[in-house]
């Protein structure tokens, strides 16, 4: 009887300590999987600056992209003072039409002030690169670079892409004398 009492008391103490000191885990004793309880740090959000979506030809000059139908002011600032400038009301009723002449090209705009947009560029300077084609090249160069034109006659090739076009003007034979970028009004503004 005494031994039973002693054994019972000691055993109860041991069992109590085991139960108290053991795992927080009330499971069956099987190996638990590491559970993901959160993502922790949050990632920063980065605004992706949308460059003007150009669904057409653009003219690259001095690292700048000249995109037709867009405001002219930023590019005019880059181009600086023109050698000549003419401005008059367009008879087609689009407000003011202006041509800025530079040694590199003639730069055409429509509208005034904050509404002045890029209308076109006329290149007759053989030094200016037009995407791999230069004034003075043979017309085959233009075809190899720009592909098949939508229109072709003795004096030029016309290419259309989105709401822009390129006219490759020849001398009536096979030499390019002008390359003109411009808005393709038939396809409207973006």
């Amino acid at each position, binding site marked *: 009887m005494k031994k039973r009492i002693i054994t019972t008391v000691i055993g109860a103490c041991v069992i109590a300590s085991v139960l108290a000191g053991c795992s927080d885990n009330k499971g069956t004793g099987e190996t638990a999987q590491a559970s993901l309880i959160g*993502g922790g740090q949050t990632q920063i959000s980065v605004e992706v600056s949308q460059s003007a979506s150009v669904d057409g030809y653009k003219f690259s000059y001095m690292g700048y992209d000249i995109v037709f139908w867009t405001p002219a002011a930023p590019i005019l600032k880059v181009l600086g003072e023109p050698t000549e400038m003419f401005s008059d009301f367009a*008879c*087609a009723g689009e407000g003011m039409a202006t041509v800025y002449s530079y040694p590199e090209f003639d730069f055409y705009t429509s509208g005034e002030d904050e509404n002045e947009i890029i209308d076109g560029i006329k290149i007759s300077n053989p030094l200016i690169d037009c995407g791999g084609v230069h004034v003075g090249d043979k017309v085959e160069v233009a075809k190899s670079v720009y592909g098949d034109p939508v229109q072709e006659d*003795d004096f030029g090739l016309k290419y259309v892409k989105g709401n822009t076009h390129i006219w490759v003007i020849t001398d009536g034979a096979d030499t390019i004398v002008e390359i003109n970028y411009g808005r393709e*009004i038939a396809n409207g503004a973006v």
Partner: protein
Amino acid sequence: MKKIIGKITGFLYVAAIVTVSVIFTIRDADRNIIRTVTIEAGDEIRIADFFRECPKDAKFVTPVSGIDTSVPAIYKLTVFYDEAFKKDVVLKIEDHTGPKGIAIPKKQWARVKWPEAKDCVGYLYDLNGIAKIEYQNGTPDYEISGLYMVPVVVTDWYNNSAVIDVPFEVTDDHNAPLFYGIHDINIDNSENAVINYFDGVTWKDDFDEEPRVIVDNKNVEIGVEGSYLITYKAVDAAGNIRTQDAFVNIKEPNVINSVLGAGAAWDSNEHNEIVRIASGVLDSLKGSSDSETAKNIFDWVHSHVTYEQIFGVQTYEGAVYQALTKHSGDCYGFYACSKFLLDLAGIPNMMVVRYPVTYQGHYWNLVKIDGEWYHCDSTMFMNHPTVYFKNTDSQIGDSRHRFDGSMLPVRAGGNPEYA
């Protein structure tokens, strides 16, 4: 009785000691464990990190080998130690390490657009990837020559940044190359004459040792007497262009110049040339009727001529020639080219002039089709991209086409009294 009480007391005393010992053991074990551990992303998960004094038998009950420590996250794990204890702990993986990379030195012309910030740094590395690269102080705008250190900030997806100073050598070059020795060139009218355009001509640039130089001599016709404009053009690496003109004078040796008669305009070389070109165009436009031919003409002009404002006075034939050969012109050019083709096709037509003129004049064609007069306008308008063809007064009666009907024959559907 006393003995029994004494023994029971003894037993209870022992039990109490044992219990207290166990409780203290448990408490010490509990105090030894670190419940939440944070490690840097990419570091190893170590059992010792979860204890102040790591027991020799401490181990992870949950497998940790499958945890990707490169990705910030929070995990619940289970550890076993001291032969008896099994505890839940929390592992936090965080990224507080910024990216690494090197600067790519740049040479920059002041006039040229500055490169993107991402093009100024290289060999970038970060465990969780680069989120953004940007100039710390915005895109530089140095206009004066010099060496500048431009800070570029590289940030990973957990907002850890590194600043990399990029050396820029800026050259402010606004001076185009200079020509020396350009002069007029005089040759005879031999068809085999050869011209050395660069004889006696040199050039120099302040920064570019080899600027690109060409001669625009497209106007020169070897063997044909005349004075031809040529243009020397040079461009340097900064894009500055210099042009300088000269003349190539081709003359018949020892021949007295004579003045030829001007001739009638309709028989002039210019007119005949335009007729030749226009006839070639018209061949592809002729239809089975005047109506069809006229429609083809206006469609062709509308789609083959680009609107370009003409400044200054332009003759009728000059406008036609520009439309046919340069595919450009203003509304007068559209009208003139249409008229020239209609005349060649034998289709009666006349000019209609905008009236009243509020801001600028405008011209279009009145064409006789199927016995009646109709308005036709091939001009490309911004807000009316399709061609006006075979329109009555009311159909073309928009703000662009106001006119004085009293000056014109009666139109189809028109009021003879219309003004």
